[in-house]
């Protein structure tokens, strides 16, 4: 029995259910899509015969192939963006761990092998409006997305998003992930949360029904999420006037050089682009999007409750809705 799911413009063929991706049952879509087949196997090698300059102890490259070793959990061998072979490290590894790393890492590497521009980004829509939040892990993309989710925004793709040269973002992992302390501060009850992995204090929302969405959305606005501001860091601003800690700071970015640099620095797994020799394609894609999107920088206070209050009461995101 096989299941087919949409993710980053690809069609994932697996023999297990994945609840937070959009399932496809239409055979014509399946037959005409870019298929990535996920296959359990044995004896995946842990290295290629020729070492690549960009190899680390855990990720290895050879031409358009990649081996990803996740210690004591799973090893993936990803080939040409078409096949993902996986091998469980031992019998104790839970299936949800395999699915987690398949969705958050292996499939993104397959997308990179296909030459796609993958960003560290969470993309959302509400009516006709589409925004993406870009920033490295732990900058609060999930937290802000959760606050917007509560205000009617829907997730297109969480944590990583594929942005095409014609500004389309494709549906991906549609489940939000939050840390235990964030859940506690925002008053989300434990019974509404599910562990991402059994030994992590990081959760996804339990039983939030995800309605299927369109395969892709036209992006309009990009928000780079800056590290949350702290009043004691006022001195780092070029303009040394104190920050109003009860405001969301919003700055338009006009410098093309700065935009390209910020996008490049927020590429998902830049080592893969180098190891798989896809950096040139990636840079071309960045430039293809440069003048077609509106780029802003967003900074929130270092206080979650205040941030929630500001998002609930500010028109910042609501005015994006046409």
């Amino acid at each position: 029995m096989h299941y087919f799911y949409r993710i980053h413009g690809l069609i994932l063929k697996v023999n297990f259910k994945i609840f937070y991706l959009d399932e496809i049952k239409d055979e014509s879509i399946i037959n005409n899509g870019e298929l990535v087949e996920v296959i359990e196997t044995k004896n995946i090698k842990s290295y290629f015969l020729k070492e690549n300059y960009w190899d680390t102890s855990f990720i290895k490259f050879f031409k358009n192939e990649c081996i990803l070793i996740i210690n004591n959990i799973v090893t993936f061998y990803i080939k040409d963006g078409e096949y993902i072979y996986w091998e469980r490290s031992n019998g104790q590894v839970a299936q949800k761990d395999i699915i987690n790393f398949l969705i958050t890492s292996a499939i993104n590497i397959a997308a990179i092998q296909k030459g796609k521009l993958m960003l560290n980004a969470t993309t959302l829509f509400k009516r006709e409006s589409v925004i993406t939040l870009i920033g490295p892990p732990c900058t609060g993309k999930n937290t802000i997305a959760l606050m917007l989710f509560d205000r009617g925004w829907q997730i297109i793709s969480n944590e990583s998003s594929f942005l095409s040269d014609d500004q389309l973002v494709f549906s991906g992992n549609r489940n939000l992930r939050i840390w235990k302390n964030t859940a506690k501060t925002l008053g989300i009850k434990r019974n509404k949360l599910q562990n991402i992995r059994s030994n992590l204090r990081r959760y996804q929302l339990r039983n939030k029904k995800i309605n299927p969405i369109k395969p892709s959305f036209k992006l309009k606005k990009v928000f780079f999420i800056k590290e949350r501001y702290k009043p004691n860091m006022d001195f780092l601003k070029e303009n040394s006037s104190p920050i109003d800690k009860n405001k969301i700071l919003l700055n338009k970015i006009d410098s093309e050089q700065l935009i390209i640099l910020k996008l490049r620095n927020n590429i998902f797994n830049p080592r893969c682009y180098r190891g798989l020799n896809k950096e040139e394609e990636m840079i071309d894609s960045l430039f293809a999007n440069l003048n077609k999107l509106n780029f802003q920088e967003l900074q929130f206070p270092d206080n979650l409750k205040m941030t929630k209050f500001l998002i609930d009461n500010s028109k910042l995101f609501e005015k994006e809705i046409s």
Partner: protein
Amino acid sequence: MKNSIADNNYYYLASYPKSGNTWVRLFIKEISRISNIKNEDDLAEININKELNTGTITSSRVWISDQLGINSCDLSFKELDLVRGKCGKSKNIFNEADRFHKTHDAFISKDSAGNPILETNNCKGAVYILRHPEDVVISLSHFFNLNYDESVEFLLNKDSCLVPNEGSGNAQVRQYMGRWDKHVLSWVDQEIIPTIVMRYEDMKFDPITSFSKLSSFLNLTDDIELIKKAIDNTSIEKIKDIERRLKGFREKPAKCDSFFRSGRTGEGAEKLSFIQKEKLYKNMNKVMNRFGYELSK
């Protein structure tokens, strides 16, 4: 500056927090900066908020994720401690800095299965920076907003670590340190990478000898005039003044008034009670004596 660190060669700058690690990094950057000044009109002093990148801190999530090929947030601290020892093969992508990596980790973590918590292949060496624990207590209490009793307990706690909370997203992963004396021994008695010890007190009272040793070990320069100038430019008084004029230092925690505080030695002797000092000494006298630290009166 002689040493241009090749991608696969690197050093560690290891210490318990508040022992002088930042001072050593400032010196390294200052040597580099003044070596490259072409005329006297160039920038007269180091900008501590823009020019202190000597290399990625070993606990950086971005770097660890880059090496692992996955988001490090998806691994627990215990799982991370088992893999961090292989996470330094190459420097962070897009990070053009040298590879003098700051670390507060003990050499072996309680969760690293007896293996070094950091990569050791191709490591050219480690500088272990050490300070009288009584003074560390005072400095730590200001830094973490602890009272002196709590700060003493921190140094004596076998489970002490930075970023202890696994339930929050943080730009750094947990750094296990343990007791102060065990932390010292974990670095100075390991036999895997060559290590020199820099005592804070020697850096302060015999800076030329101390920083010349550092400079030689890191293959920075043997130009004594350059070393003297870098020492002068990075004295605590000058750096405090720079911090004051820049209105802050980016590595300063929220609850701490200023990062560069007094830099004094003997402050612990003055401010701690005899009971507090005795508690430190009673528990850690072997290591304290070995490095010339006594119970102060």
